[in-house]
């Protein structure tokens, strides 16, 4: 016998969410029949500010679309303007952008692992993940001046160089971080209790992931090899990149992808440090953008697209962002249908929701 349908609100203020999203959970007994998302709690409308800020100032605003993927947003925006104006940035700047991008991926994935552990009730695991994350943030702060908002990207290159001595120091310090991460990841991938909570929950088949347009670790956790880094932007074409995929098609798969990407990023950073060419880190920029451009890159959460249109004046005429979390929400809705009410918080977290990005 099944009970009558009840609607249970989830969010916008919820202990498991650092950010507000609202879901109406239609439940029958303890089973979720349907989840209806409603968004807009973080919408600021910053895309409209392009008509008041010129394109070089807007880099700072693009960076503030989201505080976690801040660096990737600024580099994607700069990449778009550079593509539109036909600017070729120096090789060293290309490598540095890749380096900081990979550092922010490690910081974001560790942040997620922590939040995920917290959602499962593993509080000390949460603290351990964030403890390791602090050493990544220290490197960010030492090289850019900012912990989470860096302000280091600009149209035509980057603002700061990293000396070769410091780079080899970073390489040495990565060893300790890598050891700590190995210990941490062991728990996420092997712990009995944790696997009981995660395996088989939030199922998303490969065909659904593809059809619903999932991106990033959500798609890769379902066995879809979708990663913008394969398109060889920035320095990825020199580094030779292969995406990590998992085929369990559930929360565990998504967790596994992110855990393995931590070490993939460490390897990429090591390659960057050995291969980085000498030279300038920026070129002079003259003129204004004219025309339209789609700029893509891989954020920690998946593919981000910046659409940029200019008319030859210093202000862009249109700016539009397509962020990975918004793209992953349809996949989330399909994962939630049929799950247990108690699993909703952790299934929501497996897509690594970044509402700041999603709503801008």
């Amino acid at each position, binding site marked *: 016998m099944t009970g009558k349908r009840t609607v249970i609100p989830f969010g916008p203020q919820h202990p498991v969410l650092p950010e507000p999203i609202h879901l109406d959970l239609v439940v029958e007994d303890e089973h979720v029949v349907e989840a209806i998302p409603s968004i*807009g709690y973080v919408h*600021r409308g910053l895309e409209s500010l392009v008509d008041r800020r010129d394109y070089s100032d807007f880099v700072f605003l693009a960076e503030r679309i989201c505080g976690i993927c801040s660096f990737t947003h600024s580099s994607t925006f700069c990449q778009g303007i550079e593509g539109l104006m036909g600017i070729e940035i120096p090789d060293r700047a290309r490598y540095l952008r890749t380096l900081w991008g990979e550092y922010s991926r490690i910081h974001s994935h560790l942040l997620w692992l922590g939040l995920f552990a917290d959602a499962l009730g593993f509080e000390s695991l*949460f603290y351990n993940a964030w403890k390791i994350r602090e050493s990544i943030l220290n490197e960010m702060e030492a090289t850019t001046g900012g912990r989470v908002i860096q302000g280091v990207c600009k149209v035509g290159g980057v603002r700061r160089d990293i000396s070769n001595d410091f780079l080899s120091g970073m390489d040495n310090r990565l060893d300790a971080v890598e050891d700590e991460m190995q210990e941490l990841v062991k728990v996420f991938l092997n712990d009995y209790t944790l696997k009981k909570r995660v395996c088989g929950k939030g199922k998303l088949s490969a065909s659904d992931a593809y059809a619903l347009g999932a991106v990033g670790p959500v798609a890769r956790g379902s066995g879809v090899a979708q990663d913008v880094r394969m398109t060889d932007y920035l320095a990825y074409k020199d580094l030779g990149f292969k995406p990590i995929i998992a085929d369990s098609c559930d929360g565990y798969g998504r967790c596994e992808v992110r855990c393995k990407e931590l070490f993939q990023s460490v390897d990429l950073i090591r390659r960057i440090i050995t291969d980085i060419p000498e030279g300038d880190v920026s070129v002079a920029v003259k003129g204004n953008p004219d025309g339209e451009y789609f700029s893509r890159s891989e954020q920690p959460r998946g593919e981000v697209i910046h659409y940029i249109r200019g008319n030859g004046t210093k202000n862009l005429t249109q700016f539009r962002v397509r962020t990975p979390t918004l793209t992953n929400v349809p996949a989330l809705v399909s994962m939630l249908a049929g799950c247990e009410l108690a699993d909703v918080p952790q299934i929501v977290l497996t897509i690594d929701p970044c*509402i700041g990005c999603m709503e801008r």
Partner: protein
Amino acid sequence: MTSAAKSPWLLHYNASSCNGCDIEILAALTPLYDVERFGIINTGNPAHADIFVVTGGVNEQNKEVLKNLYDQIPEPKVVVAVGICASSGGVFRDCYNVSGGVDTIIPVDVYVPGCSVRPEALIEGVVKAIGVLEEKRAKMEAEK
């Protein structure tokens, strides 16, 4: 000093912030800064909270949520506006959907500027908030 003032509980709400300040609030709780050693806990329940930590410039959709949460926190309560967006609207001040600071909706006691806020600054803000909380409590006691 009452025990609640030694170890106040926080309620955190993201009122259209970019996330930068929110992750720094969480970072302040984790091992490097570790305010939990003083008994400061990030609670999810407004009825348990003493200090309301708000980030972001507040938009049309969440101002009701913000008011609701504020009303549910028992007296005495202190509001800390974390980050420049919460203090004045910051870079998003000119956006069509941003009301320009938490104090346009609810009274704010402590402002912590920065973009994004550093955990050290945040901790100082919360320490100031504890002072304000004590003052408010003393005033309530006197009025009894």
